[in-house]
């Protein structure tokens, strides 16, 4: 049954049906990817899975959100083998082009959510990957990111939305970034499995072998040890084998071995190394990495937990508002301390105030339109802006005062031992200088600085005072 009017070919790659236009990829021909941004969805004819994988990877790994967030559908005439990696990356499948009408609802839903996003460019690669991940999860309403067993993956498990960003050899970095996203509160995890990776190249394609503990050769031969009771001779089975028949004869007393448990027994097994002639019972287990060919004891492998991840509310909000930088990125900015360190120092300052009853202040400088600002700046420029902001603030405060990033858009500053009025004045001067700096550096960039300066109250806990200060910037 056909639900909609038949489709029309507008060009070799573009297909239209009603108000929708699709990029239609078939016959192993690849259209210019930037064209995808101008259409509602991508339809890929499935004839060769490797080709499909290639196209899907190319679309999803693109850096332009208008491309990587575009819905993708597979045109499958026959039922194919289950390919979970590809299934995860696409938004559905149809059996013929006549069924396109069935997926338009899905396209609408995705595009509505896509349009609600405020994608910012990110300071670091890590932040960029996290941005892509949470955007893809949000747009597709994907609450859980499950690891998929994947023989092609260098980790044996794939997170397709992560794997698209990495070369096969660098896939282990995906785990690091997922952990980072969890630390940032974007994702919440549950243990799923553990993988052991090569300590040299982080590959997981290992060949596990029992090896000689002396020379690490796997060329070993096991043998039963035989004890002949009457004469006490003990040796490997080959000592007892004779060349005439398959019976066992004692090399010491020439008696024929007849009955196990009565005239002989086998007290143990021994391994002989054909490489170095060492005899041993307790072999080592080595893992040979099939990627970098290092051959090491399994104890040297690095254990990594594979987890399932859920997008948190914070993650969803970050997807909508834009995610610029990880804590790690802003912690690295010269002249600042970590936010946790800032809190500790604030706590001690409050303790000091209890004794001296002096005047100290806490100031927050917030970039109100950070999403727009960062989306206009590249990663390098963003990092430069961070540095410049900090350097301007630093030049206006005393060297004993401390600066920390609370988030990529909010900076907190302690201004100790000065009256509140002066602190307010300094804050005002700093904002002026910062605005001038931005104006002089970027022609058409408008930055809305918002500030709040409060006098420290030694009767209130430091965390409460910080919460109150930053409440309006959250």
């Amino acid at each position, binding site marked *: 049954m056909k639900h909609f009017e038949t489709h029309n070919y507008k060009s070799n790659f573009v297909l239209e049906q009603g108000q929708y236009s699709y990029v239609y990829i078939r016959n192993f021909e690849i259209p210019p990817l930037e064209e995808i941004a101008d259409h509602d969805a991508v339809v890929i004819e499935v004839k060769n899975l490797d080709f499909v994988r290639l196209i899907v990877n190319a679309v999803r790994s693109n850096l332009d959100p208008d491309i990587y967030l575009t819905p993708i559908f597979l045109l499958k005439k026959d039922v194919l083998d289950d390919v979970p990696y590809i299934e995860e990356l696409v938004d559905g499948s149809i059996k013929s082009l006549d069924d396109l009408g069935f997926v338009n609802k899905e396209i609408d839903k995705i595009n509505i959510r896509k349009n609600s996003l405020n994608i910012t460019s990110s300071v670091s690669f890590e932040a960029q990957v996290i941005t892509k991940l949470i955007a893809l999860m949000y747009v597709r309403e994907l609450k859980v990111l499950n690891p998929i067993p994947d023989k092609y993956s260098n980790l044996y498990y794939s997170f397709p939305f992560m794997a698209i960003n990495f070369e096969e050899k660098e896939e282990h970095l995906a785990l690091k970034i997922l952990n980072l996203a969890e630390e940032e509160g974007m994702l919440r995890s549950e243990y799923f499995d553990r993988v052991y990776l090569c300590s040299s190249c982080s590959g997981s394609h290992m060949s596990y072998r029992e090896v000689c503990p002396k020379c690490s050769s796997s060329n070993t031969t096991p043998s039963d040890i035989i004890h002949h009771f*009457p004469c006490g001779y003990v040796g490997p089975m080959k000592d007892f084998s004779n060349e005439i028949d398959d019976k066992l004869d004692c090399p010491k007393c020439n008696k024929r071995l007849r009955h196990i448990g009565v005239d002989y*027994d086998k007290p*143990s097994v021994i391994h002989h190394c054909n490489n170095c002639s060492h005899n041993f019972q307790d072999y080592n287990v080595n893992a040979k990495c099939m990627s970098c060919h290092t051959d090491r004891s399994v104890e040297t492998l690095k254990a990594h937990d594979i987890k399932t991840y859920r997008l948190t509310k914070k993650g969803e909000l970050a997807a909508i508002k834009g995610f610029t930088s990880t804590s790690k990125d802003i912690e690295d900015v010269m002249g600042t301390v970590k936010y946790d360190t800032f809190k500790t120092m604030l706590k001690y300052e409050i303790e000091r105030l209890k004794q001296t009853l002096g005047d100290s202040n806490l100031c927050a400088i917030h970039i109100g339109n950070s999403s727009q600002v960062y989306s206009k700046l590249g990663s390098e420029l963003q990092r430069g802006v961070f540095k410049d902001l900090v350097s301007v603030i630093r030049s206006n405060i005393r060297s004993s005062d401390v600066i920390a990033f609370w988030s990529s858009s909010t900076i907190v500053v302690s201004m100790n031992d000065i009256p509140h009025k002066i602190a307010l004045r300094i804050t005002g001067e700093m904002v002026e200088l910062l605005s001038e700096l931005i104006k002089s550096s970027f022609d058409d960039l408008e930055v809305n600085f918002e500030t709040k300066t409060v006098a420290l109250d030694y009767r209130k806990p430091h965390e409460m005072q910080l919460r109150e200060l930053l409440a309006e910037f959250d």
Partner: protein
Amino acid sequence: MEGILDSYMRFLATLTPAYFFELFWFYFVFEFIRYFFLEFIVLNLYKIKSWTQRDKKEDARRRLFLENPLVSILIPGKNEGKHLYKLANSLSEQTYKNIEIIVVDDGSDDETPIIGRSLEKAGLIDTFIRNELRGGKASAANCALRFAKGKYIIHLDADCSYDNDAMEKILIPFFMDNRVGGVGGNVSVRNYNESLVTTLQGIEYFNTITTGRTVTSYLGIYRIISGAFGAFRADVLDQLKGWDIGPGLDGDITVKIRKKGYKIAFAEDANCLTSVPNTFKKLIKQRLRWDKSLVRFRMRKHRDILIPNQSFKYSNFISAFENITYNVLLNFKWYVYLGIMLTYYRPLFLNIFITNILLYTATNYVKFVVYSLYRPKAHVSMSYFLVYLPCMVLYYGMYLRAVRTVAYLQEFFFKKSYQDPWNPRKTSIHGEYLGI
């Protein structure tokens, strides 16, 4: 007491030389001549030989280090795990370095497998073989031997410790005489001050065993390479295909090497310390086993040594004959002496008994002091033992003699050694059937 003393003084006054000999012939003929006079002469000869051969010995030592052959150290045993770390550590301190250590765990039911494996992993021992089924000491030693790669084999007991030049010293005799097939090390008592029984054994090892081995070695009739510390040429052990089932396998292998025409040497300066049984009960058990093996191996399995045939050798004959005569025959002859004294000299028996004790004690003191001039360095101060020397008469003359007598009779008439749980029944049953 006064009466006894008075009677004894009167007895001494009646003693003429002829009468003295009539009453104490056993001491003069067998004890004084064999265990003091002859030993003293041989010790002197031995000293002279050592002095004249000092350059040859130094040359042998030099050649040992020049050739630097691989030496396999075999440590078979059951439930010896607790000693292994200390032993392996002490072996790593040896002056002779080219060694491989092979430990065979003969079906231990304690922590030995775990300890052995971890020492092997740590590289303190080269090969650890765990046999799940206990096969007895001989099978464990043979198992280690089968996988040994060294040109020389040293057999150790795990509960012993060794001077840091002991391995070097025990190997030197092989380089002094290429007809030497096996060398025994000098075993002393480590726990000599633990109890009276260990002190008495300390004196026994110190005064009798070491001296006895020095003398018999000089005479070419040395007969037991101690299982606690013995070295062998690997090719000789290969010809023999290792040890036969015990107990008493160390004496057995020594005879087998002798029968192959090789010499046995004693390295008195290759020192080993062992822990001896610390109660009289445990000592009885050990000595019954040792003494039974004399009958089993010397008088049964290797009786052919005493029979003139194609492979007859005087040194082997004398070695076995001396051993049987002084340990078995004279042991029973002593009872004859006792019987004569009780029958014909009953009124004088107490006085004869006291005199015998005094004679033996005096001899022990003289021997102890004089022989100390011939002994190499010791691990214990001699003065410690002086107080205990009077006890040796009862220890050696009564206690050990009684144990020996029981052991010989048990073995003669009941072949009790085959029932000894020291060896698993599955192997002993074959030994008994084959008469070995």
